[in-house]
């Protein structure tokens, strides 16, 4: 059965690109438009991995990571955050919130797949 990956991003184009790349890699994708939407969807279904942007309206990436880790079903899943080079402090914040790793924007589809393979095994 295909593994399920959630992508949470307020940018539709990034969501589309991430979603497209993952589907091509054989994964099932759940999209969420911001942290709040993501948490709601996470409560409803089990996902194997979460890829989240850091800057999102309503609930940002850090909040989403903390919220997700509090859910039993998401306690040990890999969580990857999308950051930019200028957000080093945010990266640390995300890590202490429980993120597994990060991808620096901009990234290419191959880079995304490499990271997914790395953390999902």
């Amino acid at each position, binding site marked *: 059965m295909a593994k399920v990956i959630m992508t949470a991003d*307020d*940018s*539709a*184009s*990034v969501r*589309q*690109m991430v979603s*497209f790349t993952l589907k091509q890699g054989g994964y099932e994708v759940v999209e969420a438009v911001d942290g709040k939407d993501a948490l709601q969807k996470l409560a409803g279904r089990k996902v194997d991995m979460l890829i989240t942007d850091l*800057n*999102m*309206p309503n609930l940002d990436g850090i909040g989403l990571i903390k919220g997700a*880790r509090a859910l039993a079903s998401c*306690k*040990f*899943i*890999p*969580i990857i955050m*999308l950051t*930019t*080079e*200028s957000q080093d402090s945010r990266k640390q914040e995300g*890590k202490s919130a*429980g*993120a*597994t*790793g*990060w991808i*620096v*924007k*901009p*990234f*290419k589809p191959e880079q995304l797949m490499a990271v997914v393979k*790395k*953390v*999902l*095994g």
Partner: protein
Amino acid sequence: MIDVHRQAFKEEAYELLSELENSLLELEERPDDVDLIGRVFRAMHTIKGSGSMFGFDDIASFTHEVETVFDMVRNGKLEVTTTLVNLTLSARDQIKSMLDNSDGGGADLETSGRIIAGLRALASNEGPAAPAAPVEPKAVKPAGGARMTYRIRFVPPRDIFSSGSNPLNLLSELKELGVCNAVAHTSGVPSLEDIDPEGCYVHWDVILTTDQGLNAIRDVFIFVEDDCELRIEVIAEHDEFSAQESYKKLGEILQERGAISSDEMAGVLAKQRRFGEIAVSSGLVPEAEVLSALVEQRHVQAVRQEKQSADAANSIRVPAERLDMLVNLVGELVTVQARLSQTAAGRGDAELSAIAEEVERLTGELRDNALNIRMLPIGSTFSKFKRLVRDLSAELGKEIEMTTEGAETELDKTVIERLNDPLIHLIRNSIDHGLELPEVRLAAGKPRFGTVHLAAVHSGDSVLITIKDDGAGLDKEAIRAKAIERGVIAASAELSDKELFALVFAPGFSTAKKVSSVSGRGVGMDVVKKAIDALRGSIEVASVQGEGTRIMVRIPLTLAIIESLLVKIGKDFFMLPLSLVDECVELTREDVARAHGRNLAHVRERLVPYIPLRERFRIPGRVPDIEQIVITEVNGVRVGFVVDQVIGEHQTVIKSLGRAYKNAEGISGATILGDGSVALILDVPQLVQSVEAEAA
């Protein structure tokens, strides 16, 4: 596909830009609204991040400047002023015009520059400006480089699982980099009541040989290296291994790793037992450490071995003499084995017989394998002939096509080498004498192209090589006339086709009307025949006039060992190649008397000439009352050899006689019998020939 994403980005960016415009206008009215500031920042952030992802690098770097300023506003370092709003609005318009150009570039650089300068000025007024680091995608590291072996110690944090990392994934990632051996240290695992089921108590030592470089290894641990204990050391460059005779001793590895001090090691060494055992039993080093060091030792040895075997590749070159030596030894073994079997059969001892049978089976396999080593496909010779045919056809003005079959047929290396010249000769003959000129062929209703077909096929313990052409064929009358003229046969002789065709191999026989550079110098077929005879082969010709000629060369698979018939004359042993032997019959005093000294025996209503070997080799002693005739067939002619006694079949390992006896007639070699005595191998075709020559 990329275009779809670009389009999606543009649509999204237009949306964001119009939202941005509204936000900015609102912001002018309520400059303290944190929500509004956040919205402006996010819009810029998204345009920047997504833009660079889909190749709108100009937009990304331009937007970065705006984003930097708004990051400062968001953090309270900068206030929202009318100037800022104006600048941002013009920046927004600039981004829009950049988007309008489909490729995202080609914007008015002057305007961009002016806006950026304005924004930077604003930012620098308030404290140090954030360095405008351009966002660049990380360059992909070039793979390759020197093969190195690393020792990696990976101690994950206790809570590694809670960050969603799986150490096993990291280890398997390492494994993909190269040859990898991992040892888990489990000494940190507490007893059951103290254990936190969500904690990680294990750490690992990994020995990795890879050409990917240190950075590739670091990349594996990129997400965890800040939190875990990670030690990566180079233990050896690959070339170092090959230079060193054997890898470091266990104690040295442990000392290098800091698991044991040199004093402690000296103490252990003084006890002179297996280092690992002592180190553990004396409690100096935990067992896992020793195990890990052992793994390193083995890993390095394995890598080195792998390198050596890679160097040696899949085949090895061995001097031919060594193979010959091996085959000789196998031959001796075969001889001894034959003797063993015989002795065992004579004793009637069941146990001994069982052993003898086993030895016989093994010897047989050993012999086949040893001989197989020297086998080569004949194909390489075939391809040489293609060139020959091509050159000849140009020289002679004939159009010739050569086809081959059975190029994969294997033959002993020496046989192939010695077959080369005779085969060239035969092919030349076919092309020169056999195949006609294109006009002649067309007139005879044949295709313009003449064909020479070369085929090799296994048949029993020999290989049959056929050279077939669709040329003019042999002219029987011409051969007959020439043979009579040269005195090879009597004018009244009645000959079968087979016998007639065999005449072309007679010395000095050539039917070619004119001498060309290719053939017809009168040293033709008899040379070929001699060469084939020397290989203990046979040659035969079949031909239909006007349709073509077929020459069949039969060559034994190997020269080293043959099946032969062992015979005895007086006290001396001789061998006849079994492939030539037809049957054995008795020769009594009466038969000799009846033949009136003509050396002819009556075998099943046919006269068979025989050669009394005792006379031929001048062996003294009394002739037994009943002698034996071994009847052989050479080139379709039956000739008998008279011997005292036929002993039986024998696996014969052929030894050459050496230079001194090179010219000994009638003997092709010698072999050593099980009891150490020497038996000479008869050169049957040559004996027949020389007797015929004497008679004529």
